[in-house]
């Protein structure tokens, strides 16, 4: 991906497998994201765009809603395969 913007949960395409590369929130909340199942390497799909940049990500049968700010701080890359 050779864009000037990093690809994030907020701006990545819908319904495509993406692997999380980094989660740029404070320590406490980063660990909470991890406990929610979102951490570097996790493959997710963004399934819904909501208001103010809010996103719903899917991981298997699980659905997690993220606010816009948080969504824009989770960088992703297209998952291989």
């Amino acid at each position, binding site marked *: 991906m050779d864009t000037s913007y990093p690809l994030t949960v907020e701006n990545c395409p819908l319904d495509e497998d993406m692997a999380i590369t980094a989660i740029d929130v404070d320590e406490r909340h980063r660990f909470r994201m991890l*406990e929610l*199942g979102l951490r570097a390497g996790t493959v997710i*799909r963004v399934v819904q765009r909501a*208001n103010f940049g809010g996103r719903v990500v899917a991981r*298997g049968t699980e659905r997690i809603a993220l606010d816009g700010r948080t969504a824009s701080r989770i960088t992703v890359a297209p998952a291989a395969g």
Partner: protein
Amino acid sequence: MTSDHYDHRRGLAALLPARRHDDHDDHDGHDAGAANHHAARPCCDVGGRRVHDGGMPRIVFIGNPNVGKSSLFNAILGARARVMNAPGTTVLLEEGVYVHDGVRWDLIDTPGTYSLLPLSPDEEVAAKAVTGMDGDGAPDLIVTVVDATNISRALYFLATVLELGRPTVVALTMNDLAARQGARIEPAQLSRALDGVPVVEVDGRTGAGAGALMDAVGAHLSGTPLPHGLTRVDVDDVDLRAWVEGGADARFDWAAGVLARLDMHARDRVTVSDRIDRVLLNPVFGVIAFLLLMLGVFEATTTLAGPAQDWIDGTVRGWLVAGVDRLFAIAGPGAADSWFHSLVVDGLVDGVVTIGTFIPPMGIMFILLSLLEDSGYLARAAFVMDRAMRCMGLDGRAFLPIVIGFGCNLPALAATRTLPDSRQRVLVGMLVPFSSCTARLSVYLVLAYAFFREQAGLVVFMMYMCSIVLILLVGILLRRVRFTDVRPEPFAMSLPPYQVPRIVALVRSVLMRLWGFVRGASTIIISMLVVMWLLQAIPAGAAAGSFAKVDDVHDSVYGVVADRVAPVFAPAGFDDWHASAALMTGFVAKEVVVASMAQSYSIDTGDEDEQQQGEGSLGAAMRASFDESSGDHGRAAAIAFMLFTLAYTPCLATVAELRRQYSTRIAMQSVGLGLVVAYILAVVAFQTLRWVL
């Protein structure tokens, strides 16, 4: 004081072990070492203990939010479950005694949490209960509730709990939903994958599996195996944070291993819920749908409840009074003339009717809340409104109670229950009384027509604007001084799949909540009304009549109190006993403020509507006394009076409910806050407006 020293250690600090030198069993405590924890507990911990006595085994239920933990808990305990605050907090815990084969167990339901490293007081309570740091010692058995549709996250959490080394039983919920998504989990297979940790499939909505779960609890109180790949931890000897964070990777590896043994591979596909969310979470339609739904709930709790309330207030009251009269007639002639008859009719019957009139809006609210919760929409509402409410530092779900408050404060308080964070719940509970309910509207209307005629509509509209501004300002104030630790956090929440609510479970929970309300609020409402009756019954001076036979309120103790209070309002322009007497009645209910005014002027308003009352003789009487008390700035005084009515206190039923849901202290703080805000508002308004009005 020692007993609640935990509560002063906020946040993570509270979880770092305060070393207790009781008989910690160092060997792999899966044998019956549990009971010793109780025996050797330091005496100072007793203050924090709850209903259970001595050796009753404690079974703690824990799990992620929205996994069906409370449904399950209520299916097991039914009406025996008791909701209460965790000691020293406003965090709600449910507790109850369960009898299994003649043995009494103490069951405890904790707030949902994703982690044992808490980010909120609620999660802290859950973490303390399960680790035994709540002063009650480690639980004798932990029931970990696992949601089949969120299995990988649940397994991670389960791993943390298992590492505590207490006997643990897994309650597997939502398997029906998982099956619908083609991802059903066989409990026996999961148990094997967990190296023998018992797993029981349950459905809290039907109660299916609850008996089997309790049997499994009984069979495993002596211990359950620790699966391979997990390391037992000793919470008394380890830094909790280091343990939870340090072991995370190992737990995920373990969870992945379990998933592999379950032969589960993530089945990605677009579900029905995803399709519904395309609309309900859509940036535009989502907000519209939300607002329409709120409008519907608001209408239901006001318009729909209205006729039922009128019927109870009129017809049912008539029946009760007739019944009382008949009983007194049996007691003999003259009995109906006694003070006791007056007490029963004006005190007790009035109290019963007052509670009765709140049953329709409360019942409707409870039904709608259950529907919103059970369908899975409420979690979405939090998300849809997140951004709008965030600027006020509130949860998206806080929108609902505040809007409902404009209809009636009481069901609005019921709606604060949907806020999972206890600080938010109390904060919103303290804001709700500033939502101008329809009862207050009756006061505005009469005064607006009495003093402003042509601009009456505008004046009433301005009162509503003031109410909104007050909520915003008081919200900021409360967050600055009382809820300093409430700040916007990143929003990350699991969305449950949509589902059709179950009617039986719904009716059961609605009836239980209604009963809780009636039981909790009735004592305070009836006793306050009796006090009011007494004040009006006692004559002030020999010429005023005899006990319970005071013709003019002004001659009763009540009138004397009103006289004494009145001068306080001189700076607000209404140093007048009619006004202060009406405001005192308004403590009970705002609906009766106008009636009380009319009574104090001895004006029979018959069945005039508010406009006729304002423009008729009642309005004229009010204009006369307000003009007099304000030095001919009656209109400024009227505005001050309306603003005071808006803010000074919610009705008695709301105060009773504040006390029941939070605590006596919070109810008092709420009333105190209202009085202070109302007084400042009224004085400032009068002192400014008298230059122009």
